[in-house]
């Protein structure tokens, strides 16, 4: 899957929410800044889905030993 400049531009548009300059002694790289909001949003979705699936599994797995079904990586 190739990522074109249009995709990059779309990321940039998607992530314009407001001004939040982060000035640290370390210069955050532009490429990293551009993609963080998108990665963060997707990662948020993945984490939510994972927690949701965990809840579903715990609900259905309740009859088995409690600890056994909780052994998922988090």
């Amino acid at each position: 899957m190739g990522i074109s400049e249009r995709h990059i531009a779309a990321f940039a548009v998607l992530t314009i929410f407001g001004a939040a300059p982060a000035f640290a002694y370390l210069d955050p790289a532009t490429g990293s800044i551009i993609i963080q909001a998108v990665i963060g949003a997707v990662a948020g979705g993945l984490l939510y889905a994972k927690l949701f699936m965990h809840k579903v599994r715990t609900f259905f797995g309740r009859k088995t030993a409690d600890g056994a079904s909780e052994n998922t990586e988090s």
Partner: protein
Amino acid sequence: MINPDPGSFRDPSGRVFIQDGRVLRAIYEMGRDNFEAVQKVGVLDALIAKGLLVEAETAEPGLADNMEPKPAHLLSHPLIPFISYPYEWTFSQLKAAAVLHLELHLEALRANFTLCDATAYNVQFRGTEPVFIDHLSVVPYDEGEIWAGHRQFCMQFLNPLLLWAKRGVVPNSWYRGSVEGIAPEDLAAVLSWRDKLSFTVLAHVVTQAKAHNHALKTETKEKIVKVHKLPKRSLVAMLEGLKSYISGLQLPGGRSVWSDYAGDNSYNAEKRAEKHDFVAAMAGSVQPDMMFDIGCNSGDFTQTALDAGAKSVVAFDFDYGALERCYSRFSQSKQSVLPLWLDAANPSPSQGWANSERASLGDRGKIDAMVALAVIHHISIGRNVPLDMAVDWLIGLAPQGVIEFPNKDDVMVRKLLASRKDIFPDYTEEAFLQHVGSRAQIVEQKKLGEDGRLIVQYRRT
């Protein structure tokens, strides 16, 4: 007046000094507000209590008077027994350091603080346990701020681990050369399309590389910094995602060359027992606070030295498989052993800014003793280092120690000479003893079993 540590200059809010067996951290005006905010809510104490951050206390007020510029605050920390760098760590050590970094960041965010950088050099090992050492990296978090250390985290933790796990390529030589880690643009070029079939790799490596290259062409940074915002829940999700992904990374299967060396080498049990006794006698009489084990393998003789009275050991080997086993062994026993990768013919140099930001192997504090068992033939014959120079280097590492000398009848030496011309007429026991004797006092010497290896204990005069 004392000089600051040459590796502590990047963040102008403070600097670090080594004095009287402890670390002093000066916090200057530039760092005062952040530090006082952190102190006020006790977030550093909470991180210390969880074992994530090295201990700190306020230094005696008088100490700051001799300092120029005068610090706003002065902290005192215990010394890390031996400073090491990520390009000397094994896969498991780099992974443990990465997970520690993410855990510390997540813990700080719970208290509404964040980390202003993500350098792997801020993680050090006490024995096998990683710990974060830079208290000034913890700063107040502003809702919506981006993760300033994201690219740095990728370069110094994620990318070397990915190169190792996905391609089976040890990143350490590359890492040592670049010092700042491996750029996403470079890693993306060497990963296969299959490696890229994961959200973490696609997002943090491939997309970041593309975005970075794109940004270099278009000079829009000022605008970009102002408009980008990352909600806290997204930052937390990103860190949690990385933590989960990195925790699951594994080395590709396969035995390393020397991993089973200790198990199937040419040694019989009796000779090994004699060798253990010899090492134990040295460690028992010297009682070293810090000992080097050069060529540690999976740590059998390190264990012997610890049992005999060595307090802390840095265990070096050239073989990553052996080091992994050593790390796993002493992680389980929770003993003070730091396994590190070493090519004896090319030890870590002084490097970074002004060639002094990262110290060379020989310049990281006092070493009280060393053992070099089944090593010298690898240096002398394996790497063509004349015997006197090999002895010189080994004895230079510590004032007292043990060196084992396998002669040309030894099966391991024969193996090294099997496919090459013997250009080592000076590689003899007599020459070895003479070289040791001219540099140190030979406290004891012994032959291990009949026709076995020569082993000596020396004390520098």
